């Protein structure tokens, strides 16, 4: 059972990583990187590390994504 969950999570996170690197739109790339962090937090939970999973979910996929989006918003504001 755990093996199936781990394979699915691994595939999702790798797809997210590829999208984050190769997609042309920066918003999509940033959200895909947030998805990678979210799947990583579930992987930490499978590896019996609930403390790390909580930190990764709150910081890695929450605050980091929002800071990226704030900077992107500022860059666009000047462009358009």
């Amino acid at each position, binding site marked *: 059972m755990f093996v199936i969950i781990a394979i699915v999570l691994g595939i999702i996170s790798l797809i997210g990583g590829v999208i984050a690197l190769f997609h042309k739109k920066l918003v999509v790339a940033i959200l895909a990187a947030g998805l990678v962090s979210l799947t990583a937090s579930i992987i930490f939970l499978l590896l019996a590390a609930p*403390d790390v999973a909580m930190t990764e979910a709150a910081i890695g996929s929450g*605050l980091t994504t929002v800071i990226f989006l*704030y900077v992107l918003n500022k860059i666009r504001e000047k462009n358009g």
Partner: protein
Amino acid sequence: MVKNTLILLLTLGIGLIMYDVYEDFKFQESLPLLGDYYARNAASETGSANLVTAVVVTYRGFDTLGEVSILFLTASIISFMFKYKEEHATKKEYRPASELLISSTQVFTPIMLIVGIYIFANGHLSPGGGFQGGAVIASAFLLMLLANPGMHLSHKIISRVESISGIGFVLAGVAGLVYAGGFLDNTVLSKGEFGHLLSAGLIPIIYIFIGLKVGAELSNIVSTMSHLPKENN
């Protein structure tokens, strides 16, 4: 063309190194020496049920002190680079947030603050602690900033909370040096009954300080990033 080939070769080389890592990776059948010591003795020595908390706060507490100061350094560099100016901010007009976001912010912000405090006060009993609780508190302030974009967190309050909790952390460490075995030794207060809220000596107090400090620093980073100036001046 040459550049692309070089990049491909470099990635292949790194892949080869990583394959070596994968080949040599051995899964442990039992705990290594240090982990074994912590598993046997940490609960009775510190009185904390969560062993990660015991390692972070007491055994490796000095690392945590350095880590918190790195966070302080980055937060202060960011606020130094994007200095907030009063006259620029008053002219700025923001698009108002939607009704749904404003109402849900009014409901959820107090709950999120209480959950954050709960997480760092119970760090020695359940998963969680200062870093997680601080991140939840920063998320609550982030929600408030999203609902009314013109809002400014008071820098005076943030810096007071931050410096008082930092001094408290160091003083708790020095108290361990004077009254117990060493820097950040938590047995200054009694260890109490295992598994109760008021137990594990100084650990809950130190983790509350860490939580307040991390929460103040992360909120400062988020609030600075949300009020970035338009032009370089």
